Structure formats: C-alpha cells, structure tokens
C-alpha cells in the first residue's frame, strides 16, 4: 500500500505546486494576450519582485504581508517603466526586435539584481505560517497548501476583474482588437500599461511565494524558463489554458521526477514544448491564428 501513498503524495505535491506555476504562466499569458509580446524577462521581473520582498521584509523589517504589498507597489512601477521605455518605442517592430528587447531587458535586470544584492542566496522570512499536514501516511507541507490557496485566490480575483470590472473589460477589448478599441474611446495605452503592471504583480506574488520560507538567489529567474511548457501547452493567449496546463504539467512533472529521476526536471518542460509545437502549436485552449494576406 505504501506505493499507493507515494503516488498520492507525488500527485498532491504536483497539484499544489501547479498553483505557483499557474501564476507564473499567467504573468506570461497576460502580456502576450494584451500586447502580443512574448516576455522573456518574466522570470527576471519575478526575481526582482522576490528581491524587493526580501528587502522590504529583512532590511526594512516590515511584517511579511506589508512587505509583499510594498514589493508589489515597487514592481508595478518597474513594469510600467519597462513598458514605457522599452516596449512602447518598439511597438509595430518585427518579432525579432521585440523578442530581443525582452531578452535584453532580462539580461539588464539579472545583472542589476546581482550588482545590488549579490549572487549568494539570501534567507527570506516565511509569508505563511508553517504547519505540516498529515493525512494517513501522506504527508504534505502546509506551505504548499497555503501557496496553492493564495495562488487560487489571486487567480480567481484576476478572472473576476477581467469579467466584471470596467478596466478589465477595456483590457480584454484592447487585447482582441486594439484599433477598434481605440475608436470606441478606450485608452489602449493605459490598458497596455495596466497589462504589464498586472503581469508584474502576478509574477511577484509567485516569486515571493517561492522564496518565502527559503532563500532568494538569482537562480530563481532561470527556473521561470520552464514555464514555457505551461504556456505553450495551454496556448500562449489563453488564461484558462494556462491554469489547466499548469495543473497538467505540475502533476506530470512531479510524477516524472518521482519515478524517472530528478535530472528529468531540466529537460522535461522542453520536451513538452517540442511535442506540443509539433502536434498542436496553438495549445490546448489557445486561439488558432488564421493568416490573411
């Protein structure tokens, strides 16, 4: 019976880890859907957010919740600045220009963070209280459950925002057709800026949850590249797809690592990406692009 419990444990851990990867994927998908930019700097923005959380909590000695809020405010400013200074001047440029601009941004942020905070891991205080949960022979760390609940709440809030609020509907309109949205009186620049801010905030919450009760180091950014598996599987422009795919990838990855070996973790996301691009490039729930001359 222990085999069965081990399986359940892997499944649950994968499922719970998917909450955070859904947040990371959302930070990606929001930007792609809203501005058609594949943001290679998403991981670095997340890392910057995590470092801001560390600074607010450890250096300024704020309580964790206040520290998170301060980090979110900081990252909102930084995201708006990135949008205004880098992506706005490049609007309408070819794909490679925009792709390389975000890669350049990633390099800039990575170097900047290492200059300010150094390369060594820094210990961060826990955002959520610790409580291990035992359920029969299955043991789950409480932080995983807490992270999952917090991530789900934030995702739910985002979905409600996009469905019902005026700003959210304006952002959806801008995403689906910027020109028409502009003629209808929607301030598409504000919408696009808002998109970047929301993406930065989502990424920062994910980053803070990952580093809380552990340590923050520049390696955090590279782990975010694995999120490509989630966004390609779900569809680059689908919020629902990102959530669904993060569940699938979370469970699959946990099972692969558990049964095949930890080394597979490095290559697994990319195998998913390649397989998906061959079989169904627009993802499970993404929009199939139809090209016209």
């Amino acid at each position, binding site marked *: 019976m222990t085999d069965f419990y081990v399986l359940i444990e892997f499944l649950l851990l994968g499922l719970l880890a998917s909450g955070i990867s859904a947040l990371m994927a959302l930070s990606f998908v929001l930007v792609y859907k809203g501005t058609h930019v594949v943001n290679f700097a998403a991981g670095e923005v997340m890392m910057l957010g995590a470092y801001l959380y560390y600074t607010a909590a450890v250096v300024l000695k704020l309580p964790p919740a206040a520290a998170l809020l301060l980090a979110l405010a900081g990252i909102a400013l930084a995201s708006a600045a990135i949008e205004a200074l880098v992506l706005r*001047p490049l609007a309408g*440029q070819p794909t*490679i220009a925009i792709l390389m601009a975000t890669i350049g941004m990633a*390099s800039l942020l990575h*170097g900047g963070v*290492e200059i300010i905070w150094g390369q060594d891991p820094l210990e961060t205080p826990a955002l959520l209280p610790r409580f291990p949960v035992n359920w029969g022979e299955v043991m789950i760390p409480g932080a995983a459950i807490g992270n999952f609940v917090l991530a789900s709440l934030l995702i739910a809030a985002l979905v409600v925002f996009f469905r019902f609020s005026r700003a959210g509907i304006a952002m959806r309109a801008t995403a689906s057709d910027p020109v028409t949205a502009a003629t209808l009186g929607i301030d598409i620049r504000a919408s696009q800026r808002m998109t970047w801010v929301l993406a930065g905030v989502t990424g920062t919450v994910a980053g803070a949850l990952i580093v809380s009760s552990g340590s923050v180091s520049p390696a955090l950014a590279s782990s975010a590249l694995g999120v490509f598996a989630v966004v390609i599987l779900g569809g680059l422009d689908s919020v629902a797809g990102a959530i669904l795919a993060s569940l699938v990838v979370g469970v699959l990855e946990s099972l692969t690592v558990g049964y095949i070996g930890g080394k597979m973790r490095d290559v697994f996301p990319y195998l998913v990406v390649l397989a998906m*691009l061959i079989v169904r490039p627009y993802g499970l729930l993404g929009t199939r692009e139809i090209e016209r001359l």
Partner: protein
Amino acid sequence: MRTGVFFENYHGEEQLWDSRTAKVWMAIFVGAVATLPWWGSDYMVAMACIVGIHLIATMGLNITTGSAGLISLSQAAFMGVGCYAVSWFARWGLPFWLALPLAGTLAAAIGMLVGLPSLRVKGMYFAIATLAAHFVLSFLFREWTPVTGGPRGVTVPPANFFGIELAGDRRMFYPIFACALLLGLAAANIGRSYVGRAFVAVRDRDISAEILGVNLLRYKVLAFMLGAFYAGIAGGLLGYFYGAITSEYFTFSLSVFYVAAIIVGGLGRVLGSVLGAVFMTFVPESLRLLSSALSGSVPALASLLLPMGQVVFGALIIAFLIFEPHGLAQVWARVRRTFHLWPFRT
C-alpha cells in the same frame, strides 16, 4: 571626385563590391588581417582567433535569422554538435580539413532534424521551439557521457595539415582565418543568388513568397541547415582552438549572444555579421580590461564584472533596437556616404 555610388544596370547592383575603391580597401584589409601573426602580439592573435570563430557562427545565424527571418535560439547547441563531432573525427584519425566540413554537415543534419518539425510554426513560436531544442541538446551534452564526456568534456588532438602540426594560437589562426574568409564569401554570394532572394522573400512575407513559386519548406529548411552548418564549423574550430572543451561552453547565453551580434551588426548582411561579431566580442573584453585596470583602486570591482557585463549587454541590445535598428552596418553606410559627399552634407 566621387559623389556617391550609382548603378546604370542591375548587373552593377549584384556586384559583390560596388566600386573599385571598395575592392582595393577590402584587399588591403584582408591582407592586413592575414599577416597579423607576424606583427601582432600573442594577445591580439588569440583575440583574432576568438573573433573569427564567433564571426563564422554569427554569419550562419545571419543567414537563418537575418535573411530568412527564422529566429533561432539554438546556434550554440549546433556549435556544440560540431565540437563533439570534431573530437570524435579527430580520434578516428581524420585530418582536420575533412573533419571540419563533416562536423558542419552533421550539425546541419541535426539542424534539419530540429528544423523540420519546428517549421510547422513560425515567428515567436519558432523561436520558442528552437529554445526548447537548445535545452534538449545541451541536456544531451551534459548527460550522454559516453559520447560527450559529460561534465568533464572532451579533448581534441591538435589539427595536422600535411605534416605541419597546427598547435598554438599563431598556427590555429590560419585555418580559422581561411574558414571565415571562405564562409564569408559564400554567405555574400548566397545573398545575391536566387537562393538568397528566396530567403528574403520568405522573411518578408512567406505566403506571398509561396504564391510566387518559392518552395517554402525547402527554403526554410535550407536556411536553417545553412545556419547550423556554419555553427558546426565554428564549433569544430573552437574544439581545435581550445584543445579541450566541456558542455559548459555551449550555454543559452551564447545562443543569445549570436542573436545580439546580428542585431547590433545589422540583419541580413555579411558586413553586419562582421561588425557585430567584432563589436560584441570586444565589449566584454574592454570591460574586463577596464576593471582590471581599476581593480587596484576599487577592489570590489572584480566581483561585479560579470553582472556589469550583463547590464551592458542588455542595455546595448535595447539601445540598438530603439535607436539604430539596422545596426552598425547602417552606421557604416552613413559614414561612407558622408565621405562620398564631402564637403556637402547628407
């Protein structure tokens, strides 16, 4: 006095060098570089070898990405393929002038393997597919120990050219120089042939190109394979140059480095590859020299070197994209025009 370069027929436009002056200066430049081992210091020769290797890989990427518009983020992985291939060919006793093209061909074959399925998608999706391919290949470099030596890497015996052992920077300079020159001429000539025009048509609007009779699949795969071939040669030369190499060298950052080089240099032009490769090699190098010069007064600077390099690298890419999107080649064209039209302003 010349007031510019004017063409009276299309034949003139298709020339490799648009004027006699350009041809003469080109010959002087090539001659100066060819005699470098005689008049240059050890440091200069070693740097020239590294620039040459980067240049070959950059020219390859400039065909794939600059001319044909397929954004490839796996150039470093194909270099790795070339390097490991050369190490095996050399161990089997193949001479280097046979091992290098074979390594290039093997890299091109693997490029086709990666490229064919990836060509179902394009644009950003293609870039992500090549990114995934890069990480799968570098995973193999790390873990497939019987072939790649794993983290310990492989050694490459020194190249041997009809009895002359090409060991040391000064002797390795000539194979690298010859390859760069040959492959550069090849790239320039591809650019002015039917194949090169087909690449540009595919880049600018692939559906229109297909309607005009360009076989999309064939030319996309060809462009990708050519880029991988150049990378394979560059990787092979890298193996001979260092003599021993590990999987650590072929990182994702190196792939990004080559894309940055063609952006900074100028997309779709051989001149752009040259300027980009030289510039991007010398920027981190001059940073290193600067920090070692200042390290006496500011000791903390040495540990900041790597992140400083990243900041400068990122800032350069963004600055070029925003302020000089056609790269250094365009700057050069402007300088040339100023000379042509002097004393008049452009």
